[in-house]
């Protein structure tokens, strides 16, 4: 493994795929902090920033961004290989809202000044982002959001509340959907605003989730003054951009990452339980593996579209549904074969890397966040299949 040379970022996309895979392995071997492998829960910034900074330093932080903006500009196949190897190695997820969502949005819709200001700060880890869309009464019906931004001189004054904001306690910037026109039709009075979380008037309150983890938050805004230049795109056109961004979120959640990791845990569990050779287990394992392979193929077609510069269609909802439900099916199977071990709070005795119950619980909200799977199916039936209603 040590024999493999790790070429500079700009050369990565030019490697042949198998060679690239070896390079990723060598890269992780050389750089990934051992103590962060297979974290049982999503890590906070204080724990994962070490890895974020390593990726930043090596230029590996943003695999999907174009090279001119500091990304790796990787082909779809290579992005899949990268994520497979990350999963295989047990790489922790970073605070990636800036990388996965805000960055692509600014690249697509931001002004030159915004690109120059915000993109480099994501690349260095100076800005850690969180996503402030959902509100207590605006979840699936996101366009019902009521957090309001009212112009006042050079500023907007923001009042309202966001909820379920993942890792808001770690973030120093938040991207918001806010109401800027109360009279317009609900989708037409929404704007996209970038807010420095150090601004007076912002309160963050963690919510404990089913994993007993403080992973999401409520965020309150009380007369928060935000400079006008922090508006992205046109006033009252935030909804269209948010929809475009949801495409990125869906393709991110639809990536085979979670399922691939879960399947590797299922395999490990089967070995521990001594059922690897059991015909019934082998059949259900084969089903899950085949579904994962097909998901990878479908994912590849969407990534290829992005790479050709096309925008994602509503059919990207398929990826989100298929991936999250596969993730759940795999963890359901883990619970089936793990017996009483599935009820344990902490990783299974003798194997720190195998937390059946934790993974089972983590899989539950995947069909809720990023647009619930019911909403994705509504989109598919109306906007892809053209069914009336």
């Amino acid at each position: 493994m040590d024999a493999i040379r790790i070429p500079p970022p700009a050369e990565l996309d030019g490697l042949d795929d198998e060679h690239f895979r070896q390079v990723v392995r060598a890269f992780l071997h050389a750089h990934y902090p051992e103590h962060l492998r297979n974290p049982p829960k999503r890590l906070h910034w204080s724990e994962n920033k070490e890895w974020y900074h390593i990726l930043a330093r090596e230029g590996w932080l943003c695999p999907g961004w174009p090279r001119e903006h500091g990304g790796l500009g990787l082909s779809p196949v290579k992005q899949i290989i990268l994520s497979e190897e990350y999963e295989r190695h047990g790489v922790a997820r970073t605070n990636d809202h800036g990388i996965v969502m805000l960055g692509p949005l600014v690249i697509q819709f931001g002004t030159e000044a915004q690109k120059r200001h915000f993109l480099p700060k994501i690349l260095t880890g100076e800005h850690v982002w969180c996503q402030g869309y959902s509100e207590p009464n605006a979840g699936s019906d996101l366009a019902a959001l009521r957090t309001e931004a009212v112009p006042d001189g050079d500023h907007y004054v923001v009042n309202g509340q966001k909820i379920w904001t993942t890792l808001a306690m770690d973030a120093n910037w938040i991207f918001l959907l806010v109401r800027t026109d109360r009279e317009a039709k609900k989708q037409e009075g929404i704007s996209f605003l970038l807010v420095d979380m150090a601004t007076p008037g912002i309160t963050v309150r963690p919510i404990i989730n089913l994993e007993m983890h403080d992973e999401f938050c409520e965020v309150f805004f009380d007369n928060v003054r935000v400079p006008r230049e922090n508006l992205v795109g046109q006033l009252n056109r935030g909804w269209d951009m948010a929809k475009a961004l949801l495409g990125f979120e869906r393709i991110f959640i639809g990536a085979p990452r979670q399922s691939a990791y879960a399947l590797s845990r299922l395999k490990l569990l089967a070995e521990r339980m001594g059922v690897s050779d059991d015909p019934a287990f082998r059949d259900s394992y084969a089903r899950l593996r085949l579904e994962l392979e097909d998901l990878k193929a479908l994912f590849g077609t969407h990534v290829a579209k992005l790479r050709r510069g096309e925008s994602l269609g509503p059919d990207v909802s398929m990826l989100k549904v298929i991936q999250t439900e596969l993730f759940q099916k795999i963890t359901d199977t883990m619970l089936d074969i793990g017996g009483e071990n599935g009820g344990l709070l902490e990783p299974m005795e003798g194997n720190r890397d195998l937390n059946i119950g934790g993974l089972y619980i983590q899989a539950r909200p995947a069909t809720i966040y990023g647009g619930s799977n019911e909403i994705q199916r509504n989109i598919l039936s109306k906007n892809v299949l053209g069914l009336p209603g």
Partner: protein
Amino acid sequence: MSAAAPDDADRLESIRMIRDSAAAVAPPGGDLRRVRDLRFTGPGYDPAVLRGIGELGWIGLRVPEEAGGAGLGMGEMCALAEQLGAGLVPEPLIHAALSAALLAAAGERALLARVLSGDALVLTAWQERADTLDAPASPDGARRFLPMAGGAEAFLVPVREGGGIALYAQPAAGADLVLERTQDGGSFGTLRPALSGATRIADDVGAVLPGLLDDAALATAATLLGGMERAFAMTLDYLKTRQQFGKIIGTFQALQHRAADLAMQIALTRASVESAAAALDAGAAGDARRAAVSRAKVRATEASMLVTRGCIQLHGGIGYTDQYDVGLYLRKAMVVSGQFGGAALHRRRFMAAAPEVDE
């Protein structure tokens, strides 16, 4: 095999009374404050409530009257377990009842009296690995998954000796016991038995142990039934109040169908559990008994997971918070559904016991 629920009026009255009396421990209004307060603490249950349960006669519900029990049937036991499951009651009734039944069979009256009164929690350390109903083989092999073991006063340790299964009682004091926390806020203990410090209380419980494990499996199915039903009721309420898109979300057909699907699983579980209890009370033995129990446990194990996770989904984000009660039911099902055999094990057992479809 599929006997219906009892139609005899006395039995129905007896079962109704048990249900009503359960309100003493599992508040019917669904107040889970006590349950929440006990999570991830000391032994994970309240010894005073266990004594209360003893006073109500529940630990000895199935123990013959001449041994100090109430001598009631599986119909009553399942009705009770169901209510306690609905209230997420952490006191380990089923496990205490298993030990009481074994002590009664062994004729060990002094310890039995303390178990029946709820003064002592005695757990039966019968399980050597996950997902099994097999009686243990070795004298010193670790015994796993002992619920709330931190509160136990003693363990009953079945050991294969010669052709039978001898029963030892080992005090908890000084025992090699390791606790692991569970998703519901309780714990599983692993005991390394030390027979040198134990008392041999019966030469052979091999004839009764499998049947008692079956009873526990069926009562566990009833616990799961109670839990899934309560979680579903909470969810129905939520579907009738939460609004999105200017409508009550319960008006969306996708959710209506999903709710209908879950309701069908609950109905199947109830039918399966109640008919199994009736079959046992009617004296089903051997294969017929095993088939009835396994059928109920398969259904309850699978339906409880399906229903509780469906309930989270139907709630959206709020369902994924620790503060909201519906998640407690999911996490309880994660701990309980695997106890006394998982679905695959009971499917195999069912097919072995009932290889042909009834005509």
